[in-house]
């Protein structure tokens, strides 16, 4: 009956002698194998021996088989004992691991061609770039109610991600009624930058309840900001100077 099982299967006695094997097991194993030990690679013998005393239930472990045409064949071995006899099923898993091995080989080749001095310089450079991004959008509280964020240099996605983190934190900690973003010192704004910029403005609006204000927009920026279909949740003001004059006058008003 067991010979028609669709998997390699053997039945052994408590001495490990093979009593019965399925036709799949005959195909898989060395013809000369008389005991279960003969079926396993020497390095797997210790592991096998841990399962050779009868126990209850079934157990599964990985081991290398000595197959008919392969010196090692990694298999999942399932074993259960029934009185004096054990039933053992072998499922080759070499194929799954093979993919992994190939990946590892690729990595190893990559590793051997990596110049680690360069690699470390690159890491240092990335760190410096991040620092640069942080400094390119400082969040400056001008008064208790007013904050000012000048954006320096080109605005791209990675810079905006860094700026966004800092700006949200600062806006949360302070109680600003008005936040001004100044584009006077801003270079190019690319699509990713526009996207992240509008996201930041929207988030700040949710937090403050008031839209942010943008100043210092150059004609070039006007085109870039308008090029992508973004509904800007902001007010535009002309320049920092005008804004400050207006605010200083408001500030003076009660005294007058």
């Amino acid at each position, binding site marked *: 009956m067991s010979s028609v099982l669709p998997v390699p299967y053997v039945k052994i006695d408590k001495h490990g002698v093979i009593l019965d094997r399925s036709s799949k097991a005959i195909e898989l194993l060395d013809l000369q194998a008389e005991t279960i030990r003969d079926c396993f690679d020497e390095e797997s013998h210790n592991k096998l021996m841990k399962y050779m005393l009868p126990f209850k239930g079934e157990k599964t*472990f990985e081991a290398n088989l000595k197959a008919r045409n392969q010196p090692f064949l990694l298999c999942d071995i399932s074993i259960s004992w029934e009185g004096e006899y054990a039933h053992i099923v072998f499922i080759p898993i070499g194929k799954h691991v093979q993919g*992994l091995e190939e990946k590892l080989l690729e990595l190893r080749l990559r590793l051997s061609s990596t110049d680690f001095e360069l690699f470390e310089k690159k890491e240092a450079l990335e760190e410096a770039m991040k620092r640069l991004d942080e400094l390119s959008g400082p969040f400056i509280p001008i008064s208790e109610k007013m904050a000012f964020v000048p954006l320096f240099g080109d605005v791209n996605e990675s810079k905006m991600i860094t700026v966004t983190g800092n700006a949200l934190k600062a806006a949360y900690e302070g109680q600003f009624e008005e936040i001004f973003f100044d584009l006077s010192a801003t270079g190019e704004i690319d699509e990713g930058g526009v996207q992240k910029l509008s996201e930041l403005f929207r988030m700040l609006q949710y937090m403050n309840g008031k839209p942010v204000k943008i100043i210092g927009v150059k004609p070039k920026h006007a085109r870039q900001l308008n090029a992508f279909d973004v509904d800007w949740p902001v007010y535009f003001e002309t320049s920092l100077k005008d804004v400050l004059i207006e605010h200083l006058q408001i500030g003076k008003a009660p005294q007058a």
Partner: protein
Amino acid sequence: MAISAAEKLARLFLEGNHAEALRFIKQQPDQNRMVLFRDLFTPAMYMIGDLWENNEISVADEHLATGVCDFVLSRLFQVSSDETTRNKKKAMFLCLQGEQHYLGIKMINSIFEEKGWETKYYGASLPLEYALKSALQWKPEVIGLSVSIVYNLPVLKNYVRALAALPNKPDILVGGRLTEKYDLEPYVNNQGIIIRNLQQVEKWLDEYTEERINAYK
């Protein structure tokens, strides 16, 4: 219960945590390569082998740990490329064809570099014909072979015989996990030197250097 440093390293390898593994190694009080290899890397990898034998991890886990260990070794012990290579003694290292256990010989290679040798490290599974071709051109004084699988022992014989017969008569060192378990002398046949562990390499290297100095006296 406190875990040993080697066990900690083994865990980091199995987690794939190369950054933490690097940091951990750099924190060790003794930064001597030999000490790190002998007391940390080697026992950590043996522990990983034991975990497999105890059915606690799979071969896939082992592969990951090997990859991470390889990365950490490469990262920590890279030779700087601008070092002058003139008048250096030369050694090449390889695993026999079909051998994938290359970490040991990678460490040996690193020890040689530390001692001022110029080395070529071929890693896993280098067919004999390539090894011969390379050795014929480059003329290393030492060729290190690694064997870890019993099934490959007959092949070892061919490697040793062919490489020892090269015109510049290199010294053949044979190492690997099998050297501790079996007597490899019949396969090496007096044409090579069997190296059982890292300490023996160091000892051999010191004696080799001494002999050279004496020869020039």
